[in-house]
């Protein structure tokens, strides 16, 4: 029961986070200074985020929870950064929304990992695959954002 309650609580927090992030995104959705600033800003933010994720390396079993938490933190930060930029077109907005969509999935994965429910972690990751964030980045001409971080 406590597990279900925590899932519900996480869902609410996740929904609030998405709602909050969406608010930020909508303010930048108005046409403004143009896609150039967005692309440059997003590329810079993605390069930094991918570096941080790559630096995490490949975790051992007991490190999976921390790995997912660190990734979630990085993606949240990346989302905040690109949502604060001036997305000028549908493809750019779709990329920002894709990042927002990933955050609650990562939260659930972290929760499952903390419960050592590794089957659930794997199954939940299908939700991340479905977002096709790399494709969204390519469509928005965000080359760095389309790259998969590779651990050293």
């Amino acid at each position: 029961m406590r597990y279900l309650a925590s899932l519900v609580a996480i869902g609410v927090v996740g929904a609030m986070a998405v709602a909050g992030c969406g608010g930020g995104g909508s303010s930048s959705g108005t046409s403004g200074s143009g896609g150039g600033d967005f692309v440059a800003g997003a590329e810079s933010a993605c390069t930094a985020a991918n570096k941080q994720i790559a630096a995490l390396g490949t975790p051992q079993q007991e490190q999976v929870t921390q790995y997912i938490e660190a990734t979630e933190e990085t993606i949240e930060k990346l989302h905040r950064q690109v949502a604060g930029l001036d997305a000028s077109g549908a493809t750019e907005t779709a990329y920002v929304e894709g990042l927002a969509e990933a955050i609650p999935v990562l939260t659930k994965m972290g929760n499952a990992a903390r419960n050592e429910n590794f089957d659930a972690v794997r199954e939940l990751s299908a939700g991340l695959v479905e977002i096709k964030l790399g494709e969204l980045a390519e469509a928005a001409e965000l080359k760095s954002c389309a790259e998969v971080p590779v651990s050293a």
Partner: protein
Amino acid sequence: MGRLKQLKLVVALGGAIALSASVGVAWATTGATTGYPQPKHPVPATVQAPFEDRYVLTAVGSGAGIRSGEMKFEFEEGSSPQFLVGISQFYSYGPTGEIETGLFTFYPPKELPNGKGLGFTALKVGASAQYGQLTEDGELRLFTPEGAKMKGELRLHGGGPWPVEFKVLDDDERYTASPPAARQIHEAEPSKPGWGGEPSEYEGEYELTNGAEDPTAKAGSLGAVIGVAQGLGVKGAVVSEGSMKVEGDPAVATVELETGDTNRTFTLTKLVWQGDQRVAQVHNEGPDSPPVGRFEGTGGQGEVKGDLVSGHSVYKVEFKLK
């Protein structure tokens, strides 16, 4: 409690169980199943009647990975001619000892040759216990009960058959949590060294033949975490690429597996075989590191396939000698 209410309880709790490995499921074997049509090949009620009872699992083949279980068979209400439907809850061992639960129903009854007993298709219960919304997952063969004991054979998830033994529960016998652990029946372990009669049969470089599409390819910044996650879980991690090299005396296998952009290297030692069985010990950090799991599979004629278990992860692999 009405039959429909009982079913709803089974369905609702089945979903909850799928979410957590909590126990306390006496309801599973007191619940009911409904909506089962008349079997195409009716079995006389007199043949089925000795099996109508509640049971606890007392012994099971170790290969099934089942710790304990409860089962109930009852005649479908209002059926004419009568036919039995069974429902069970099995508690399974995860690779590191955590307990997982699985609900199954058994239908339709079929008479085994020579009056040996009854066979049932095993139907896995997911979100619903309603017939038509279940998936076939194996077979349960039950041999005619002898007193309070009943033996049989179980096939699940494409594995088995594993021997099973049940004991009839008294009317007032209930479990408030998971039933006691069943005795594990150990099958004959392969014992011949290597993975074949002659080293030339199995030594060499292998390629993976069951690689799946790389799930991280179009995932951008999320690719790394997907790669890590897809390598987890006991239901078979998604392997996109891989290779294996078997060499040395005693033979050691080095297995490289790729899940997305995440590469993993495993060392397999203590390779043994018997017939088409192929078994080995799995290490994460070289042959001298502590074992973290086991490889169990089949092989021969330049092919090896099976489950490579490493901690919480199971990699389903199929290799072919280059």
